């Protein structure tokens, strides 16, 4: 149950940042996860009126505000066109429309949840996060950082010509993923991320070789570690990782052919 003594709708990032320096403060995302645990907070800080709920696109990048809903991500034409529909694929099984209308990119990324489809997908796109104090850093680095009291302002995805594909397996359609796999290819490099291992996604890169996809996929998958949880065992996840990586390679390969 979520408890807070005070609610503040921040007028500026600086105000939000200052308020957030107290250990008892909390930044509100979509409130999806926050309200589930036993959370007794002092000040709940709302960023919803700072104009951070949109997606900006220019020639070089997409800038996604931390209060942007997962639903916007799912439906954004530019993002999906540029990345071959991965954003729809990595969001559409997350609980339901109403959930995705409320859940935010910032909440999803800042939480660095093991089950996060979003984090997994962002990793293979080599996205960056813009922190209010910490500046712009690669998402893979951010995922490894300790939780601190900075503010995640935006997520930035560069238009660097990579193409990406995404897939997940779930026990029921809108469950957490049992495994979440993302793969991108750019200039002879595979960018692979696997989430729900059940630990959070990590990024692994490897050169594209002449080996059959099956072999390359297995090699990639073997570089991840897997563990048991309610939804599946580490062994099974390892088995799946190889298969899905191969399929994503094939998918990207096929698209290559189509492009030509």
């Amino acid at each position, binding site marked *: 149950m*979520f408890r807070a003594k005070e*609610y503040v709708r921040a007028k500026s990032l600086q105000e939000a940042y200052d308020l957030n320096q107290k250990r008892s403060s909390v930044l509100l995302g979509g409130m999806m996860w926050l*309200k*589930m645990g036993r959370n007794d907070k002092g000040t*709940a800080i709302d960023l919803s009126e700072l104009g951070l709920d949109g997606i900006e696109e220019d020639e070089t990048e997409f800038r996604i505000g931390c209060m942007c809903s997962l639903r916007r991500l799912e439906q954004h034409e530019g993002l999906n066109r540029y990345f071959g529909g991965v954003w729809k694929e990595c969001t559409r099984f997350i609980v*339901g*429309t109403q*959930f995705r209308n*409320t859940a935010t990119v910032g909440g999803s990324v800042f939480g660095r949840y093991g089950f996060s489809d979003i984090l997994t997908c962002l990793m293979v796109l080599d996205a960056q996060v813009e922190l209010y104090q910490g500046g712009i850093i690669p998402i893979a680095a951010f995922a490894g950082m300790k939780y601190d009291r900075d503010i995640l302002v935006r997520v930035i995805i560069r238009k660097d010509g990579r193409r990406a594909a995404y897939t997940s397996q779930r026990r029921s359609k809108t469950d957490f993923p049992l495994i979440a796999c993302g793969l991108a290819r750019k200039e002879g490099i595979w960018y692979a991320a696997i989430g729900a291992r059940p630990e959070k996604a990590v990024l692994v890169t490897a050169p594209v070789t002449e080996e059959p996809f099956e072999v390359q996929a297995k090699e990639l998958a073997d570089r991840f570690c897997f563990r048991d949880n309610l939804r599946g065992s580490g062994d099974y996840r390892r088995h799946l990782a190889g298969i899905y990586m191969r399929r994503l390679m094939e998918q990207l390969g096929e698209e290559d052919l189509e492009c030509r």
Partner: protein
Amino acid sequence: MQIKITLNGKPVTAEIQADTLLLDLLREQGCYSVKRGCETSNCGLCTVWLDQLPVLSCSVLAARADGHAIITLEGVPKEAEAFSDYLAKEGADQCGFCSPGLILNVLAMERELTDPDEEQILEFLSGNLCRCTGYMGQLRAIRNYLKSRSKHEREV
């Protein structure tokens, strides 16, 4: 703290706590159609529209609704009835506990998607759980409703 919202088209001023959930505020305001089926944002029973978008009112702070417009099933009786008559005709109301959330999300879907196919319908509504019907009767009702609406539109 005090907030001002537009609830079903009417201005409402309410005294709330910082951590009051929108769901609880709405029930306090007499919008009993808003139900709670879980505490984990999974069931869809508490669906309302926040500035026209369907959201889970169990996961929105009432404070965050300050200055915004909320619609519950009570606020759209005509639109709701136009669809719910189809549910009733299928016997797909059953216990009725999940119906308000479903109806609001179907109306939101209608606004958002043009001529959705079955997969789109199922995906849009997947966050509305129902334990009575196995979903088939609801799907029949939705199809018939959408058919009647597109017919209606053609005629207009």
